């Protein structure tokens, strides 16, 4: 188990390094920040001076090495826009994003799990049909459009919730609901098919042949084993929620990491882009490490490795 974890950890560090590298080179293609920072009409001399002070005049590989070494120390540079350490700018927005993603993940998973279980257990009934149609619609609906529709209904027409911003529970309801729909649709569909697969396993027949009651068979023999792919899925969804926060935060004017990354891309604020993407990737990787740990708890075959 320890070796398994050490291996996973090493893979994760490699992945973070890879992400940082991608982001570094991609953002260098974006444009020359020095041009953006200077007022219009500034001379070539000013431009060169600014480049030199930002370290942008050095060879690209050298810049890369310098910034990777700095990143290892947690230093992502000073934001061009905010004139503060880029990581600070991103980190202070993190709680807002995490609240939204966490809420959606929690409620979405709960609703999705219940719906998926109902669909699998009530095969061929109207309940399964309703769940599956709802889940199909939920998966086919673009989150940003769903957000707009909810605003139209609950904010514009009914006036129950604010159209945007953050701070109170009321602000959280609409964006949280929007993302939960997406989460629960995915979970419901996956859990249903995973449950149906496990129900066909030989050991479930063994359990039934022992005369166990259906609920024992379901919870101990079917659900426990069916959860394994679902947990992987939750890890993936967590990543999609963080990455996808750009869109939903735009819709609800939610001042989170996604918005700050989006603004940084528009302003070509490299340090913030790098810090933001690295942070999101790191969180995603940590979530997936947790998923791997949970695997070990659920499946003794992995525990032994």
């Amino acid at each position, binding site marked *: 188990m320890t070796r398994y974890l050490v291996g996973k950890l090493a*893979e*994760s560090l*490699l*992945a*973070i390094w*890879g*992400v940082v590298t*991608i*982001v570094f080179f*991609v*953002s260098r*293609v*974006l444009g020359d920040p020095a041009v953006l920072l200077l007022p219009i009409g500034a001379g070539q001399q000013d431009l060169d001076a600014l480049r030199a002070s930002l370290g942008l005049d050095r060879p690209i590989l050298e810049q890369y090495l310098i910034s990777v070494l700095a990143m290892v120390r947690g230093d992502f540079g000073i934001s061009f826009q905010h004139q503060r350490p880029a990581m600070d700018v991103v980190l202070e927005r993190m709680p807002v994003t995490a609240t939204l993603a966490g809420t959606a993940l929690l409620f979405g998973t709960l609703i999705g799990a219940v719906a998926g279980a109902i669909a699998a257990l009530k095969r061929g009934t109207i309940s399964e049909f309703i769940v599956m149609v709802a889940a*199909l*619609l939920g*998966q*086919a*609906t*673009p989150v*940003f*459009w*769903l957000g*707009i*529709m909810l*605003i*139209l209904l609950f904010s*514009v027409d009914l006036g129950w919730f604010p159209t945007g911003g953050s701070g109170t529970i009321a602000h959280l309801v609409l964006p949280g609901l929007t993302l939960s729909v997406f989460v629960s649709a995915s979970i419901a569909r*996956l859990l249903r*098919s*995973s449950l149906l*697969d496990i129900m066909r396993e030989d050991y479930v027949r063994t359990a039934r042949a022992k005369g166990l009651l259906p609920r024992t068979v379901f919870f101990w023999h079917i659900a426990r084993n069916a959860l394994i*792919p679902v947990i*992987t*899925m939750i890890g*993936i969804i967590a*990543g*999609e929620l*963080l*990455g*996808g926060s*750009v*869109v939903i935060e*735009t*819709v609800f004017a939610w001042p989170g990491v996604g918005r700050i*990354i*989006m603004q940084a*891309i*528009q302003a070509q604020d490299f340090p913030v*882009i790098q810090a933001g*993407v690295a942070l*999101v*990737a790191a969180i*995603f*990787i940590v979530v997936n490490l947790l998923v791997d740990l949970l695997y070990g708890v659920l499946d003794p075959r992995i525990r032994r490795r």
Partner: protein
Amino acid sequence: MKAFFLALLKSRSGLFGFLLVSVFVLAAILAPYLGLPVPTRSNLLARMVAPTWTGLFSPGAHPLGTDELGRDILSRIVHGSRITLAIAAAAVILGGIVGTLLGIVAGYYRGMVDRILMRIVDIQLALPLMLLALLVVAALGPSTRNLVIVLALTSWLRYARIIRGQVLALREREFILSAHAIGAGTWRIMLKHLLPNVMTPALVIATLELARIIIMDAALSFLGLGVQPPNPSWGRMLADGRVYISTAWWIVTFPGIAILLTVLSVNLLGDWLRDHFDPKLRTTR
């Protein structure tokens, strides 16, 4: 082929998906011949006209209303689908070819090739797809070609991973060993024995990816990084219409429904293909 349609007829949801997809594809192809108003022509006298179903076939009718510049929404949706579907299809095919070939190569050769490829997949997976797409579009600029490249970039790894897994299982199958035993060359084994046996999973992934890519394409244009105006695109229509949400609900509502229906029908078709041809793919995402 005949068996395919017979099986399709037996599945209500699969058939529904197939028919709906056909309608959308036909509408997209035939858009210029449907007698719709020119999608880019604004008419300031008919700004934000509400949908009206009376006189549906009269020349000035706007069954789904008009937008803030007086452009016909139905026409914009139909013409928008041309670009959206073309981009999505191109991305799916590009990502599918690259991913499938890499998956076959990695699964067949294993060893170093495989390890390197899977590391790249892992690294890319650590970066949420939406962020990756944003970054790359922002870097390369939002042209149609770049959009296709970016979307294919978010898609290839799904093919690569699943196809690689399939090939790893296939290469232990005895007919592959048998091909080695008769002295068949690498190319023959890859093209005649492996490729035909991964075409079905690749097709299933392609269909499910198509749905995901349509949504991502819409999200990118919603953020202003998609197809550039004046060309109509569904995401862009949503972004522009948002401003008028309290006065003209139809501007944002109908493009969204168009996306929803397209994605839904593609998903239904994809689910059916998967359940029919490759049920094992159900829990591998």
